């Protein structure tokens, strides 16, 4: 997964300027898709467009070898710290699963 960095702030989304130094952000690198669950919620009351998925789990993942976090949907139950990996990219969403 591609991440963008300046002044030690890494993100999966590219900002134009770095909020620390004000320079245009040009550093990018690849990090593994794998990570650990940093936190999560189970959504029981969804917006109309995701009603067919409910209840579903949304988690914040901390990717390995970086301080980058990524918001993903996960099939099944998870706990903080669980090892997870990318399963598929569907309709603009990263869908993860527990590493078996």
């Amino acid at each position, binding site marked *: 997964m591609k991440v963008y960095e300046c002044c030690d*702030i890494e*993100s*999966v*989304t590219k900002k134009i300027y770095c909020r620390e130094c004000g320079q245009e952000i040009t550093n990018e690198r690849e990090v593994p898709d794998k990570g650990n669950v*940093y*936190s*999560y*919620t*189970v*959504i*029981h*009351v*969804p*917006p*109309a*467009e*995701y*009603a067919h*998925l409910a*209840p*579903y789990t*949304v*988690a*914040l993942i901390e990717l390995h070898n970086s301080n980058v*976090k*990524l*918001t*993903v*949907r996960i099939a099944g139950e998870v706990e*903080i710290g669980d090892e997870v990996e990318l399963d598929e990219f569907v*309709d*603009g*969403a*990263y*869908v993860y699963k527990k590493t078996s």
Partner: protein
Amino acid sequence: MTVYIQSVGMTKFGKAENSTLKDLMLQAAHEALQKAPGMKIDAVYVGNFMGGSLANQEILGAIVANDLGLGYIPTAKLEGACASGGIALRQGVLGILSGEYENVLVVGAEKMKHASTADVTQVINSAMDRDTSEKHAGLTFPGFFGVLANRYFYETGASKEHLAMIALKNRENALNNPLAQFQKPTTLEEILQARHITSPLGLFDCSPTTDGAAAVVLTSKPTDIKVLASSQASGPTMMQDAIDLLSIPAIRISGEQAYAKAGVGPEDIDVVEIHDCFSMTEMLAIEELGFYPKREGWRAIAEGKTKVTGEKPVNTSGGLLSRGHPIGATGIAQIVQLVHQLRGTAPNQMAKQPRLALAQNLGGTGAYSVVHILERV
């Protein structure tokens, strides 16, 4: 130049089946103007979030000026998600500080109860950055605070019970507020056993949908209530951009700026209205505003320090959780309660009449935060 508060007005919060968005705005504004006799209003600012999408009604500023008969004065609607009211108030304050206006009417209003929960949730989601994979993952507004809550529990000694204590406190406060939406008593057990919304958050951890409006008249003419500080900050629009998930920088920075402008610190504040859109948000806000150390807010909750009878009363109105959360009105409703506290006429009036009051109004998942500090003079 100094800005003062002349008067306030507020509708009953809840379900206003027979009132339109306009009816609600006019009712709150009329009440405030009745307590500002002879005062010529120079401008109107309206705080509103979903008038266009849910009530199919815009041009709210001009409607208020026209239907109140205020003349050909400048008006505008301000949108900043749930901080729309606070942002409108701040524009009124700035308008007077600039010297352009002497008297400004600020109104906050929302009409939500006629729509389905799925539709309201969908519209509220427009307060997140929709052009991201985070949105496509299905994260919702309450979902964001559910993720925060699980991490908070993981890093501290807090549990769902501490969130329930916040919800219970605010419900108990609302019982004495005749304008509050929820006036049915509850218990810790009922709160803990309520159905899940975005676990660990349950029904009582989430603010309701509400119809209602509130208004305030600002003036450069001295009154008994001075606006000591007005400040605003922006923050990350995505959860995955948070450097520290348990910090909401917009709250912290708007608070620090307000304290600096007012020349006071968190320890000086006597009474507080905080943006408890979720019980978890109140927990983080009492920490970010410096009332309690980071990751220690839950201890203060457990010790009852934020109750009306505690050292730092928070949300004596009932808060968003129980007073109700008509989105654009919330930032103004906070001011209504604080003005009453400072004047000694509030529901849940503090035993010792307060002198310094702080209101904090949040928009999005930390995208906006507005802080106002009021002083009784």
